């Protein structure tokens, strides 16, 4: 069992909280912890979408800066 937030090992936890970041979890509810200390497929997809969107937004800023620089204004 591993924490959703910080991937800490929850098997050593005495209380139903992550010993590192204090995120609560329920040993009887598998959705509250990770089976392995790595992002789930859903979270990976979310990361990819967010990275692409933020990258596109940053590309607009970079392109604008390059256009202004090349036009000499």
């Amino acid at each position, binding site marked *: 069992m591993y924490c959703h937030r*910080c*991937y800490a*090992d929850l098997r050593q936890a005495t209380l139903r909280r992550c010993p590192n970041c204090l995120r609560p979890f329920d040993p009887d509810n598998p959705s509250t912890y990770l089976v*392995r*200390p*790595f*992002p789930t497929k859903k979270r*990976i997809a979310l*990361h*990819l979408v967010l*990275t*692409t969107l*933020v*990258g*596109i937004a*940053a*590309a*607009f800023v*970079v*392109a604008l800066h*390059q*256009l202004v*620089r*090349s*036009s000499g204004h």
Partner: protein
Amino acid sequence: MTQHGVAMKEERANLPTPESSAPSEPPKLDYAVPAKKSYGKDLDRLIRRLTPPTDPDLRRWWWRRFVYRVALFLLFAMIALYFGPNLLEFGKFTRPTMADYVPLVEQRGVPKALKLYKLDHGQYPDDESSLVPDYLPERIDGFVARHGSVIGFVGHGEIVRYDAETTPEEWYLYGPWLSGSLPLPPVTVNPSPRPRTRPAG
């Protein structure tokens, strides 16, 4: 009474009696009070997060997460710094090359018209308006002809230039992204069949 006995008696006299001393307050317990935040603990936690764990299994997963985060960052950098700006500025994912300007230049016939004019008139025109309509069907936007040179203002801030009076004759590109000779042969014309208005030379 011996001296020791006198000392003992004095010491006993100095001791506070139970009736005379005020009831003492219980000692304050400080373990229930949250500890103040300190830079040292946060720094330690940060260092702990940035260093791989000692357990081999956890260490392996730590390195996988590290590679995953680096890959995400590289994806962001490629989109933000290369593919995104190129797509927005040039309409394609990569930077323009010299070959991209060749069709643009080949569609224009200004140097050829310039040379035909010189064959007929013996000298180059003062400006491009003299080439219309005998040598060019219409004036081409963005291209200027002056005394044997053609200058074209193409997209993205680049300028193409053809100088018919230099050796070697070539198309040259000047721009913020690219500069250099275009892969095009020199412009050549056959003698014009039209009668010349002025003697050659």
